């Protein structure tokens, strides 16, 4: 096996102007420039994108599924952040 295996990159594609970049998948490439070119050939052969980001997979930090509950629970008891929490008197408009 080759000891010079190319590193892994995560690919994010913006499908059209006005939308955010969305994770499309990953690929191997020796450097960022080649990763962009490979991403173009791999994930946008049918004009699926107008912009691509690539980032080294090892530079990506992710939350862990095990800690999902404790990690996200600060939001659970703050229902007053939603407009539907509030009672609006009859007849009030444009609120």
């Amino acid at each position, binding site marked *: 096996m080759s000891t*010079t295996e190319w590193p892994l990159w995560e690919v994010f594609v913006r499908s059209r102007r006005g939308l955010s970049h969305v994770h499309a998948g990953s690929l191997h490439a020796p450097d960022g420039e080649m990763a962009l070119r490979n991403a173009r050939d791999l994930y946008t052969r049918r004009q699926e994108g107008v912009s691509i980001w690539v980032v080294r997979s090892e530079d990506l930090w992710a939350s*862990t599924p095990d800690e999902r509950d404790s990690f996200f629970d600060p939001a659970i008891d703050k229902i007053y952040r939603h407009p539907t929490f509030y009672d609006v008197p009859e007849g009030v408009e444009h609120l």
Partner: protein
Amino acid sequence: MYGNDFGTPESQQQAAVTGESESFRAVLADDARVEPRDEMPEAYRKTLIRQIAQHAHSEIIGMQPEGNWISRAPSLRRKAILMAKVQDEAGHGLYLYAAAETLGADRADLLDQLHSGRQKYSSIFNYPTLTWADVGAIGWLVDGAAIVNQVPLCRCSYGPYARAMVRVCKEESFHQRQGFEILHHLSQGTPAQKAMAQDAVNRYWWPSLMMFGPPDDDSPNSAQSMAWGIKRFSNDDLRQRFVDMTVLQAEILGLTLPDPEISWNEERGHYDFGDIDFTELFEVIKGHGPCNEQRMAHRVKAHEDGAWVREAAMAHEAKRAARAEGAA
């Protein structure tokens, strides 16, 4: 826990089931998707790595029979289409290797397993493409069978595999249509052209049916894969679906499927068809198909001949990084 394969199938199944965590069962029960960092049984992970890798290998090896005709395609239009299709197959292989890597597999290691024969690829690619019509038959029948197999995989329980399949299926439909178009043109051409199309269908029909794998009562891993939501339909159900689709298309092509037993069964609501010679399938899987050696030799050579390119690209990046560091 799964360190050996010497137990009975029942005992292995038991071991697999006891390895399932609450969270994993809950995801399956909800028909939700398992994502890379979720807890999952080791046997589920191994089964998926094997299946996805073999799927990836099939896409990569599948470039060869058609690549064989790029330089001899009968027109510039056909040549451009065939190049785009073969490039898609390479892309499908790469989507799938990337999906396997989310499970902790290493692509270089998977390729190593392919090259040393420890992992298989679809038996269909061990048949030769003798004429231009074979390119049509591969698109129509082989890609047609692949689509029937792959559409349910878009709902596979493992997220990255399912998403790769959505992308693959979108691209496959052009593959099948271009094959159908090739055969349709040949079939309406001279008697010699029509005979060439019929010959290709004669040779590719039975191997295409074998692509769905052994019959259900002889398919040892199917039950577990169905329980895990990796597989959604049995081999025989998918095979029947393919036959039902294809019979009418053959009529429109004006070509005959080489099975005199094909007939509509009113009671079942399906077409009956003749018995498949599965000894041929097992022989081809074991390495005794017409092109096994040629396909592997070509793949290994391409990999070895490309080594200097991979090394040069890394050396270039190392040099660039060193310069950037020196300048800083």
